[in-house]
């Protein structure tokens, strides 16, 4: 009984996973101009997004912020956190309701996010390619 159930489950997962092919938008990682790095790795971004990395290498607090929704938000979470927006929200609710953390602040627009990052020491977020990023530092992303 158990083996049959397992085989059926794996089959369902495989078929549905193969149907998934979302369109991607381009996300640019931005940070406060005084952060002590010019690039971050994909692993760093995952750890920052999930609250495991909270400090820059000089010990300053990383204030991670997100967009509220949209294709750039979806792309960033998919690539770096391996989560959908709903999964990401659930992850942070889990941290919140078990007393282990507080969800990142989120913004409705790229302009509002850039303004916050420009004004907040240690802040890091992401915006769509083409957004005015003159007030912040654009970080390259390595592997």
């Amino acid at each position, binding site marked *: 009984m158990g083996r049959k159930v397992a085989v059926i489950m794996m089959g369902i997962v495989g078929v549905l*996973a193969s149907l998934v092919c979302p369109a991607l938008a381009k996300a640019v990682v931005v940070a406060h101009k005084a952060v002590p790095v010019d690039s971050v790795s994909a692993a760093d971004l995952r750890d920052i997004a999930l609250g495991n990395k909270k400090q820059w290498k000089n010990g300053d607090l990383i204030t991670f912020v997100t967009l509220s929704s949209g294709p750039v938000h979806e792309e960033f979470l998919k690539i770096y956190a391996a989560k959908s927006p709903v999964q990401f929200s659930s992850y942070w609710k889990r941290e919140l309701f078990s007393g282990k953390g507080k969800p990142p602040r989120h913004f409705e627009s790229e302009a509002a996010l850039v303004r916050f990052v420009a004004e907040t020491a240690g802040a890091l977020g992401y915006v769509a390619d083409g957004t005015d990023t003159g007030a912040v530092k654009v970080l390259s992303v390595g592997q």
Partner: protein
Amino acid sequence: MRIQQIPHVSLKGKLIMKRLSARLFNILALTVCAAHVVTAADFKHVDIHGFLSQGFLWSDRHNYPIAGTKRGTTQFNEAGINFTSEPTDKLHLGLQLFTRTFGSTSETHIGLDWAVADYRWKDWGGLRAGRIKRPKGLYNESRDVDQLRPMILLPSSVYNEQFRSDDLSIDGFSVYGTLLTQRLGSFEYQAMTGSHRLSTSDGVLASVESAAIVTSVSGVQEPVYIGSLIWNTPLRGLRVGGTAGQQTIDLKGNAGPAGAFLFGAPVGTAVKSGGRVGIYTASIEYAQEKFTLFSEFLRQAYQFPIGNYAIPDAMGWYIGASVRPIDRVEFGSYYSEYYPNENDTAGNTQIAQGNPKYNGWGKDTALFGKFDINPSWSFKVELHHLNGTALLSYDRSFNPNPPQHSILFASKLSYSF
């Protein structure tokens, strides 16, 4: 016949809903009052969040997981509210109040779920003090909040609802952190110690009392030592973890009719029992945007005799998968096996105790579906096929001569903010 029983429950359900409504109203009133107090005091950096859920359970043959399930019951809900603040970059303060109805074995008051002062001085090191949620497998720390998982009932082989309150938290200290690496992923660790006063309304105390082994029972887990390690592997979405816990338990009370033989003492005599219980889990989860695979294993090792009865070591495991074809819909299945005596998975020793063989296992095949109505509301439905009676309450007045197989239906509506 079964359908005829449901109207009978509906009448009782109205009374239950009245009581439930009063309790939920208390929580909501508390929320509103708290919000006003916070505003009045101008504590701009205190965040308030909460959740509540209401469920329904129905079974064709077993009163499982709670009494009244065979008739259909709505005595299945929880609500909580938390307050958090970060006075400095490294200090996090918070507490959560919680109440729950889970049949007759439930917390009947609003209690302190957790309350922590959390100082994290580095990514790799932090300290928590207070009432801290207890890690056990991957999902124990968040099991209060129904909305955070796709299924209603977590697999009972690892997350046994009968002993839920025994495993939830400890009062003590925890050292924790995340070791970050570029090539090997990250390692989340926790080490904690403390104590836990056992609830008499559910868990092990309610079990020995309802089985008439010990009456007027009280007990404490002290000391408790727990270690947890989760490896977020370089393969994106794959995490592997393990927890190990060791706790010393002291029980005292009066020998009940069933305990008189075990303790070799007349009914009503003051008796004590103590020992150690080790709880070990191994977990694996592979989560991608559209699907999740998960599996866990549990072993409970007892050095905890009750009178002249040595509790056997128990084990359980499960495997499951869920898919999310669109963002608001998730469905899946799991299969779970639990054995109260790991050396007797065929149930042979049950015969000598006057039980059917199938009392030696609890196997559960579940199908579940979750629908996120919006980011705050969700609705879930679930169907279980249960084989074996090892997971039923020790109080057999709920289930006299239970049959081997049963079907369980569950649904739940949840809200969080």
